[in-house]
């Protein structure tokens, strides 16, 4: 007997179709095609709701001149958008286009200005400009507030979770409504090697089988509830060409959160390196990371790490493979301090390590672009005036305009909460008692402008201790001082210079640091000092905004608490990188008669030891 598919002949097809209708009636509504399982309908409704919720925040990003584009996502109502660096890469001063055009799903096309860059991590921040009528009144978005996506917690994401990607693959959306794809998170904490010039290194990234294609770059990856967990940007492409092959990668949002302060401050950021090399060593079948080489005089070496030491954990995360190590390192900006646990001579230790940079600084020639990835062939048209007004090129910055904005905002908050010290360039006197090098002592610091024999005024710092007046007198800005002079008193790391900088900052502000020595340094964690032999760095950590200053050849970082703008401390580096900075810690703030907040506990640390802790009895500012 011939076995043939019953549908092969046309007659059979007709019969089958007729029969199907009958069969559906026969089989019953619960399994018929018209009556879907209510669970499916519910899933579909939830998906639709999630998409509706986040779609308004998804951005179609276009290069000026229409040469290319990608996607982005709004992260606050002021119009700040996250995207990939390679979407905005171009011929601008920092290797990026100052101006991009962005469409939202309501069909409106907005101008945007570049804000901040993280080239190594392939992140860029831009800001959408609301549309205004001729009178300057905002016409779009409604009320001048942009819809935005809520940032989730990418560390909570697991392989096997559902996820949703939205963006503009193949630039299909001529009406700016994003394409939605959904699929699984295939892996988390993945590592992808950088592409050329050390850029676009995807560390600790999220791997997805959610289809992403060229054009999705810079766009959001959401949980099914609509929380932003990543920015899509790369994929594994091989034999099937540069289209989705089931393996895509998104930068984790938690990494971007670490860089957010730097991005908003318009900085052209750098990623972190430790100053030492590691190698995998098999111990009992399991892999361990050991330090093989360490740069002499780098911060890690000064903290006590040496060749042969075993890494146990880095910033609280275990380091059991090269990928682990690179993943942990890759999520931090240069300059951050993170705790490092290691085993040295069979003893477990933990130290805070200052992270160095990754990119080699290219010396920018004035007027020439500061290096970057392949430039787009045609020069883009100049940005419209509204955008040009918000853009200022400067080496080291993506857009110095935003740095000034952030800097001024920070200072305003500080002044509002702590009082205005502007113009108080008279004598500052700090008197107190406490310990100097673990010995009880009373100390006095006096900082003032003093005229010398020729009548020239020099900032002078006087240090008195235990009744001995003027134990050390220093004029930090004078020429011809030796390193020893500058670092006085000995073992303080240069506290006299540091205090001078402190007064300069509060009393003179920008004017006190001529020659571009005054900028916003992004966000960094600050660690409150403790007398514990084994501090719990997670407990001691405070999130801060940094003001970066430079006076002469001496850079400093000042830490302002994100919560209320309190100046918690500063680091003044007499010898940048090669030696530890002098660390100042301010606490126990009390208001003086003029209503100004002054710290009544000052701690001075240098390297591994504490130089002094002073309970201030008199703090006079004139």
């Amino acid at each position, binding site marked *: 007997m011939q076995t043939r598919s*019953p549908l092969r002949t046309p007659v*059979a097809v007709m019969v089958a179709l007729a029969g199907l209708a009958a069969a559906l009636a026969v089989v019953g509504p619960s*399994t018929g095609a018209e009556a879907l399982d209510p669970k499916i309908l519910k899933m579909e409704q939830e998906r639709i709701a999630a998409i509706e919720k986040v779609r308004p925040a998804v951005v179609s990003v276009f290069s000026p001149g229409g040469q290319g584009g990608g996607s982005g996502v709004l992260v606050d109502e002021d119009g700040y958008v996250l995207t990939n660096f390679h979407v905005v890469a171009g011929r601008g001063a920092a290797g990026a286009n100052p101006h991009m055009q962005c469409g939202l799903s309501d069909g409106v096309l907005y101008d945007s200005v570049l804000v901040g860059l993280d080239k190594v991590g392939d992140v860029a921040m831009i800001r959408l400009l609301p549309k205004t009528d001729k009178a300057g009144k905002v016409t779009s978005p409604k009320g001048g507030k942009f819809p935005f996506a809520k940032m989730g917690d990418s560390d909570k994401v697991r*392989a096997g*979770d559902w996820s949703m990607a939205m963006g503009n693959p193949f630039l299909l959306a001529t009406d700016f409504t994003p394409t939605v794809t959904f699929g699984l998170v295939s*892996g988390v904490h993945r590592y992808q090697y950088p592409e050329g010039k050390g850029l676009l290194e995807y560390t600790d990234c999220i791997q997805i089988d959610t289809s992403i294609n060229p054009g999705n770059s810079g766009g959001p990856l959401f949980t099914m509830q609509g929380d932003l967990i990543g920015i899509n940007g790369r994929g594994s492409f091989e*034999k099937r060409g540069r289209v989705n092959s089931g393996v895509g990668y998104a930068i984790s949002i938690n990494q971007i959160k670490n860089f957010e302060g730097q991005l908003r401050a318009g900085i052209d950021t750098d990623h972190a390196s430790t100053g030492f090399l590691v190698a995998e060593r098999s111990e009992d079948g399991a*892999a361990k990371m050991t330090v093989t080489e360490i740069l002499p005089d780098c911060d890690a070496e000064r903290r006590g790490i040496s060749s042969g030491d075993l890494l146990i954990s880095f910033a609280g995360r275990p380091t059991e*493979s090269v990928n682990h190590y690179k993943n942990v390192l890759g999520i931090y900006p240069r300059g951050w301090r993170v705790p490092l646990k290691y085993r040295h001579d069979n003893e477990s230790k933990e130290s805070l390590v200052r992270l160095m940079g990754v990119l080699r600084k290219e010396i920018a020639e004035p007027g020439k672009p500061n290096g970057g990835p392949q430039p787009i062939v045609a020069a883009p048209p100049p940005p419209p005036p509204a955008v040009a007004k918000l853009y200022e090129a400067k080496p080291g910055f993506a857009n110095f305009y935003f740095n000034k904005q952030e800097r001024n905002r920070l200072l305003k908050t500080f002044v509002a909460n702590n009082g205005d010290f502007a113009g108080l360039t008279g004598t500052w006197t700090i008197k107190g008692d406490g310990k100097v090098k673990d010995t009880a002592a009373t100390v006095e610091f006096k900082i003032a402008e003093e005229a010398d024999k020729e009548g020239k005024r020099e900032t002078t710092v006087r240090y008195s201790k235990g009744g001995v007046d003027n134990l050390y007198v220093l004029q930090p800005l004078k020429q011809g001082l030796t390193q020893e002079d500058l670092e006085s008193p000995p073992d303080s790391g240069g506290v006299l210079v540091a205090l001078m900088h402190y007064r300069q900052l509060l009393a003179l502000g920008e004017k006190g640091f001529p020659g571009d020595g005054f900028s916003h340094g992004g966000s960094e964690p600050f660690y409150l000092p403790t007398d514990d032999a084994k501090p719990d760095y997670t407990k001691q950590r405070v999130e801060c905004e940094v003001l970066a200053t430079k006076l002469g050849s001496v850079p400093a970082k000042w830490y302002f608490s994100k919560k209320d703008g309190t100046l918690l401390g500063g680091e003044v580096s007499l010898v940048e990188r090669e030696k530890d900075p002098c660390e100042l810690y301010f606490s126990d703030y009390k208001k003086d008669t003029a209503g100004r907040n002054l710290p009544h506990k000052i701690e001075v640390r240098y390297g591994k030891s504490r130089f002094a802790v002073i309970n201030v009895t008199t703090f006079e500012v004139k």
Partner: protein
Amino acid sequence: MRILPAFLRPLAALVLLLGLGAASARAEDSFADVAEKVNNKLVKVFGAGGFLGIPSYGTGILVSGDGHILTVASQMLETRDLRIHLANGDRYHAKIVAVEPELDLAMLKIEEKDVKTPDFYDITAEAQKAVVEPGTGVLAISNQFNVAMRAEPMSVQRGVVAAYSKLRGRRGINQAPYDGEVYFVDAIMCNPGGGGGALTTRDGKQLLGVVGKELRNTLSDTWINYAVPLQGKITIKGEKETKTVTVGDFVSQAIKGTYVTRDPKEKKKSSNLYTGIVLVPNVVERTPPYVEELDPNSPAARAGFKPDDLIVYVDGEQVVSIKEFKDAMDRYEPGAELKVEVRRGDKLSTLTLKLEDRGKKKP
């Protein structure tokens, strides 16, 4: 359930499945736990390769408590330095214990003594479960692109069984040896390193098959994503008898050490074949296979070949050069009957060519 007319049963089954399949896969439910459980039974395999598009890494499935690993047969395994990483990152050496070229599968074993792998799949039990229907949701877990290092979990993808049908795959000119039924899946799981991974149902309760290699479908020339089902079988014609070997048989015998690895199907020497076609001289690297002349009374003459014909397809496989034509012909034995498509002028003609043995040419 009511009795349906026979010809409607497949349709009704499909309709039923749309209901059942979906209910077991809520979009919000994460597969994280399933992925983790499956991952623990898989190993990362490292061997030879890293050039000409052949990856030096792949995946394998633990099938015994003593470190037996089921994977796809590939050139990567041809090395003395075959290494595997368990899910917890432990590294061991492995050796091939058996290969079944027609199933395109291989069995490895950890070489180090006394290594126990208690988390493994019982293939005999899994193979007794029913083959799942198209429309069933699946997960594919493998170390494709070698994204996961050491103890990092492998990659999980989701998909749906698109079809259960015969594999007609090729990699370059080489036909895939297994031509039995496979699961075709819509997830792009056959990427470098994916071969040897696990295809499971979405609840993780059934191991469906072994993720396959990077192959193109011979008819459409498109990349396919397939997995060799545990129920897959081949027929082996021995000297005296014909026997059926299933994947389950291969695995259980290989674990016992009783599976006899046969030589892969040898390429037939072209000197045995006689067609009577004389091609144009093979001068440049990719001389197209134009017929110059035909032997009188030859199989080609009887099939209707004419001088100046351009041979385009041999048995459905495109041949763009004389070399490709010869390689394609090497796969056949005297007595085989092939469909050959030729371009004559601007028309394509299909000819049926019966191959003869050179030593037994008909006069």
